[in-house]
């Protein structure tokens, strides 16, 4: 899915709709979303579960905007733009819900590796510590309705999971998972069609799981790494990054990104090699690339170790052999 609302287009190319974003008239092609209209109007919108190369699932609700005539706020990422819509992106209601969503996530998850969410949290004044002070921290004793929930522990319940390291290619740290569904989409209908993972459980206990939490090598996983590429919080992380972070050597600012074409087959997937200290530390693909839409296979994603193999001296050949 390519977002092209900012590119100039002629009237007859496709039907257009005009709507109002914060009092400013914006025209976008029919079928575009309110989010695209906001972007076209120059309004930055926080998103967590939205990605340009995935179907919107509108579950994080951080992109909500106020639509005149609607009882509740609406998710900008998935709501189709309609002619005459009056949208407010910075009303008190919008700011409140965005702040609360960010605060909820901050109170439930480890967001230390989600720099974008941290930025938005500052912008909206989210204060996850509110739940520590006036929530259940320090509370003890039984409740009248004691059916064994984990709410008996002091402090607000958090997503508490050990890091799963089951192979050399990527790790899963679900205490950082905000359940944005992106990995499930990338593994499933939106890219890979492998369906190795899904959301299991319900409510606060919902988690991304293989069947019966089977270890990844035993699951349907084909190690394309597309789930890792779309994860917004570092809950899924390439092993290279995880290991470098563990020793304090993960330095994104020192990384050069080189674009190249995958050498394995003839499809022509573009790769972005993230290089730190002369070593490849991560491979991605641009979300807007016409061949990959940001998705790769195991070879393009992980099959780069040969680049760092000891130098190989080719045998001399004579011109006659050509």
């Amino acid at each position, binding site marked *: 899915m390519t977002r092209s609302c900012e590119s100039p287009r002629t009237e007859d190319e496709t039907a257009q709709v005009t709507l109002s974003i914060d009092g400013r008239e914006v025209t976008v092609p029919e079928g575009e979303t309110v989010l695209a209209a906001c972007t076209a109007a120059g309004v930055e919108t926080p998103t967590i579960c939205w990605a340009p190369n995935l179907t919107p699932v509108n579950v994080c609700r951080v992109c909500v905007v106020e639509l005149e005539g609607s009882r509740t706020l609406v998710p900008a990422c998935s709501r189709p733009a309609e002619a005459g819509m009056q949208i407010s992106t910075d009303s008190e209601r919008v700011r409140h819900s965005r702040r609360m*969503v960010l605060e909820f996530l901050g109170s439930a998850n480890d967001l230390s590796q989600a720099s974008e969410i941290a930025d938005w949290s500052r912008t909206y004044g989210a204060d996850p510590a509110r739940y520590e002070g006036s929530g259940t921290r320090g509370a003890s004793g039984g409740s009248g309705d004691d059916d064994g929930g984990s709410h008996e522990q002091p402090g607000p319940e958090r997503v508490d999971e050990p890091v799963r390291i089951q192979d050399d290619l990527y790790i899963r740290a679900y205490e950082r998972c905000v359940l944005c569904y992106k990995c499930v989409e990338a593994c499933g209908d939106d890219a890979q*069609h492998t369906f190795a993972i899904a959301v299991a459980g319900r409510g606060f206990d*919902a988690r991304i799981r293989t069947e019966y939490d089977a270890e990844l090598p035993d699951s349907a996983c084909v190690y394309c790494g597309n789930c890792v590429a779309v994860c917004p919080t570092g809950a899924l992380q390439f092993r290279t990054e995880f290991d470098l972070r563990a020793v304090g050597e993960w330095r994104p600012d020192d990384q050069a990104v080189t674009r190249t074409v995958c050498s394995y087959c003839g499809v022509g997937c573009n790769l972005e090699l993230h290089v730190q200290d002369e070593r490849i530390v991560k491979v991605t693909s641009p979300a807007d690339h016409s061949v990959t839409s940001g998705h790769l296979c195991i070879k393009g994603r992980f099959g780069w170790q040969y680049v760092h193999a000891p130098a190989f001296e080719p045998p001399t050949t004579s011109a006659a052999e050509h």
Partner: protein
Amino acid sequence: MADLHFSDAEPTASERRAVLAALSVDEASDGAVVVSHPRVVRAGMQRRKRMRHQLLPALHALQREVGWISPGGLNFVGRTLGVPPAEAYGVATFYEMFRTEAPTHELSVRHVCVDPICALAGAAPLAEHLRSQGHAVHECPCLGQCERAPAVFIQGRREPDRVPADGSGPDSLLVSVTASTAEAPSLLRQMIGRDRGHSESMSMEAYRERGGGAALDAALRLGTDEVISQVTAAGLSGRGGAAFPTGIKWRAVADGGGPKHVVANIDESEPGTFKDRLLCELEPLAIIESIAVAGLTVGAEHGWIYIRGEYPLATQRLRQAIAQARGAGWLGDDAAGSGQPFDIELRRGAGAYICGEETALFNSLEGFRGEPRNKPPFPTTHGLFGRPTVVNNPETLLNVNEILRIGPEAYRSVGTEGSPGTKLFCLSGHVGRPGLYEAPFGMPLGELLGLAGGVQGTLTAVLLGGAAGSFVGPDAETLPLSLEDTRAAGTTLGSGPVMVFNDTAEMSAVIERLAKFFRDESCGQCVPCRVGTVRQHELVTHIRRAGGPTEPQRELLGDIADAMGDASICGLGHTAASAVLSAMRLGLLGDTA
């Protein structure tokens, strides 16, 4: 199976048999690829989606046979239906009635409701008693038997599910204010004072003698436009809680292209609500007739009943009624002589309040997790299987039968201008005679309580609309029970539960339980509801222990409520704070320190 990866776990012979008996597929056929012509095959996702709606019946069969969804059983279901095991596991773990860990016993499981009314009636000692007798006990949310609390439902292990109270004890009380006048609408008229449950009174002949079949005849005689115009003129609105105008819904679906669906939403799970259970148990043929009326009116081919899994008697009677209706020609390729095909399939839920939300119901029925979809698009254009769909509550559907029987003018002779007709109220808790009451919209709350034998003791509060509703105090006795008056008073009728609490009820315990209910029943899809319901419950628990809220806690509860109400995907999140906030306003959580 070409393209799905399964573990090595194999099903046992009994698991295999149980699953196949529940499905309409041939084991020999590879689930994913079907050759329908030498040069045409159906395969992959399309084929998969065609069979996936049988996932819930298959999981029910496994659960009943071996007491859990085992890896081997899940693999077999996945292979047979073409469902990836991770997704089937995600579905199995969504529902209260399915276990994904091996049970330590071979017993049927007694589900004991611990929601407020049953808690007042002694659910905790009952659960203890059952445990001491060696039974397997599972504490669960409302079982829809509030008029005979405390409620128990037995989920059978190699035996049919059953409700002990169905076979013993007195019949549930039915009262109708409008039943005495033939020209007034009354859903309960034919059910009151009848021998209940006797096979004779359940026969098609007996139903016809009671006037059954007239609505279907009238619908076929009048035709689509006239039926919809009468429903619209009668001012009928949905009785499931949202009160959407039925005529508008039907018109939109009638105008849509086929194939189309009609769904009877009998996933009645709102705490305090039991009306649909009684309607289905007492007059199942009327439910089937009303679904056929809806289907033939809007031009749908497929009718579905989605009934909550904890209603075994209603399920059995509806299944029997479907068979009777087929026998009578109401359903089939030429349904009721209309020239249109229409048939009904029944599906059981598996314990999830959220599946009463219409789009969550669609996902559940299609074999996906019961997570609500974002609206728009609405079910009238993108409903079940993405097709135009009418989804209505049985009470709503039976009202259509009444409109066709007496005409819109007579229908409007009772009720208020804004809320014509009658409403079924489920009275439970501290009233003299708990039961199902039919009263015209607009009857003052105090009068309804009087009909039910009055409040026992001194009234503290009434919870209108169930967990998703709100508390009103003793001063609300004059409140007219209409859609517009309750809305103006900042409360709601919802699906009709009226839960009465006197001064012996520990209100803070009631409220903490309601908060726990939403924490447990949130599907977990969207952040405001997934985390907000947890934070709300934690706060209420803390406030209860402290004896009252602090000012910052009041503010925080308000902040959480606003975000859940404004930014959640569906009605569950939108209403999850309503009862708690209303309780705080009434001082039921104690005074601010």
